């Protein structure tokens, strides 16, 4: 018997806080009380495939359990999808209703005719960030999503989680499910907020467990008074966790346990590392180390097999081998008894948790009439992990001032065509760009 969101809420004492922000507080009991009412108000959503659209993490958390108590498929639609990808997603997952979620409530609209369905396990559909261009849509059931969630309600009563990921992303959903599995509260910051505001909220609400990307943690460390967040547990994920950052966090939050997690939307939660060191111990790569995950390294690339991975990928493909290991696309380096992450096979650049494909940026730069050729690559950066750098061959030789002017011209040209983190932070003008024997750009 697979678990349902209603079962999870019913386990938790009603007087516990479920979610809160500066202006609102919702108890577990409030959700339990609303479930029947929601079903009565929206009977047409029962058993339907729904895509959830929102700009507010808090509103999504407020209405997610109600929608999940009736819907068959739940597509957590990320912001900024192109119309093309959106319709592809809707078609592949047979979406019948798109539900706009705002502070005041939910606004479902029918997008395709509904058809009678057989009884089936509820599916949760989560989009990847689109490392290879088009985002992939992966399908999970609640059990596989919650396999690593601890569900001790007694311990959970002392955990107060903070959310600083979007809830419709894999990492955010993991934090959310962990909080409700053990009946803990979740204090929700919004993506539009400045870090100092989020930090103040977390201090005010007594948040003691926080999961975020390394780039977010660096901003926390730069924020006055952030050491007043009384953290018992710090989790890092989504980017490579470098040793200096782990050390700085240890110093800043002396009484906190620090864990970095290896996970991906396709493979699910892989493993966590709790010893305070970057990378992971090389004995993780042996079949007996974990019961549910096995790892192997082939030609410096990490492969993972897990019973927590997505049950299905609705568009695109995941590369698996004959033994069902998934190619993670992560390059690793074995250093004595430690395995360290080096980067991505695809040359994809991870800018503060956002994956960037060099070719996409090159094609924009190359479309400028004064550019002959360009090469985009990632360079290590102390603040965002990596920063996008570009080398550009200009049609005309440029003087020093002209270079600066043309740099700003190219940045302006990229705006509107590329998200801010994709726009090269450093642009150098060069006379030639190296290519290998097959004529491909050498990126390093």
């Amino acid at each position: 018997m697979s678990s349902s969101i209603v079962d999870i809420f019913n386990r938790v004492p009603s007087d516990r806080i479920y979610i809160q922000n500066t202006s609102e507080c919702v108890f577990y009991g409030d959700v339990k009380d609303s479930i029947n009412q929601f079903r009565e108000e929206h009977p047409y959503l029962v058993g339907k495939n729904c895509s959830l659209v929102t700009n507010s993490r808090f509103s999504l958390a407020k209405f997610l359990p109600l929608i999940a108590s009736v819907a068959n498929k739940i597509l957590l639609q990320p912001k900024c999808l192109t119309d093309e990808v959106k319709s592809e997603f809707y078609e592949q997952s047979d979406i019948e209703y798109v539900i706009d979620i705002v502070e005041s409530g939910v606004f479902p609209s029918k997008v395709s005719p509904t058809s009678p369905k057989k009884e089936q396990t509820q599916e949760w559909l989560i989009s990847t960030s689109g490392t290879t261009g088009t985002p992939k849509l992966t399908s999970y059931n609640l059990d596989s999503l919650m396999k690593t969630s601890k569900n001790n309600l007694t311990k959970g009563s002392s955990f107060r989680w903070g959310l600083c990921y979007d809830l419709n992303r894999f990492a955010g959903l993991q934090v959310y499910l962990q909080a409700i599995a053990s009946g803990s509260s979740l204090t929700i910051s919004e993506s539009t907020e400045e870090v100092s505001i989020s930090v103040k909220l977390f201090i005010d609400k007594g948040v003691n467990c926080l999961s975020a990307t390394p780039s977010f943690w660096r901003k926390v460390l730069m924020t006055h008074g952030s050491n007043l967040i009384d953290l018992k547990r710090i989790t890092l994920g989504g980017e490579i966790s470098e040793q200096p950052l782990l050390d700085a966090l240890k110093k800043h939050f002396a009484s906190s346990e620090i864990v970095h997690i290896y996970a991906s939307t396709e493979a699910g939660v892989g493993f966590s590392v709790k010893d305070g060191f970057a990378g992971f111990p090389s004995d993780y790569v042996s079949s007996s180390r974990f019961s549910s995950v096995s790892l192997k390294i082939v030609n410096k690339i990490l492969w993972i097999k897990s019973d927590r991975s997505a049950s299905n990928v609705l568009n695109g493909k995941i590369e698996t081998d004959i033994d069902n290991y998934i190619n993670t696309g992560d390059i690793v380096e074995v250093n004595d008894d430690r395995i360290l992450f080096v980067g991505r096979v695809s040359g994809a650049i991870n800018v503060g948790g956002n994956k960037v494909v060099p070719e996409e940026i090159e094609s924009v730069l190359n479309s400028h009439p004064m550019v002959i050729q360009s090469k985009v690559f990632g360079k290590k950066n102390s603040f965002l992990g990596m920063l996008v750098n570009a080398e550009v061959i200009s049609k005309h030789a440029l003087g020093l001032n002209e270079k600066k002017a043309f740099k700003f011209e190219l940045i302006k040209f990229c705006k509107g065509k590329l998200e801010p983190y994709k726009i090269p932070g450093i642009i150098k003008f060069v006379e030639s760009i190296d290519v290998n024997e097959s004529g491909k750009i050498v990126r390093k």
Partner: protein
Amino acid sequence: MKQLILEKFNEALGQVDNSKEFKSLEDSDVLLQTGLDSLGFAILVALLEEELDLDPFQLMNEPVYPKTFGEFVAIYEKYNV
């Protein structure tokens, strides 16, 4: 050093589309309230690395995350020898 950092600070602001330009910054000015976001800081550090061939944040044994403009300048002054 302060002057160079200020110049690159404004350049980074321009790159992240912030129309602000600072004629001067006080040592006590809080970095995250200047309008420069994480991306802006990443760019600032990269621009300074281009100029000075130095990223002090990668050289630190004990990592320090500056909160004010004064702290930021002090880090560069300490490592640029």
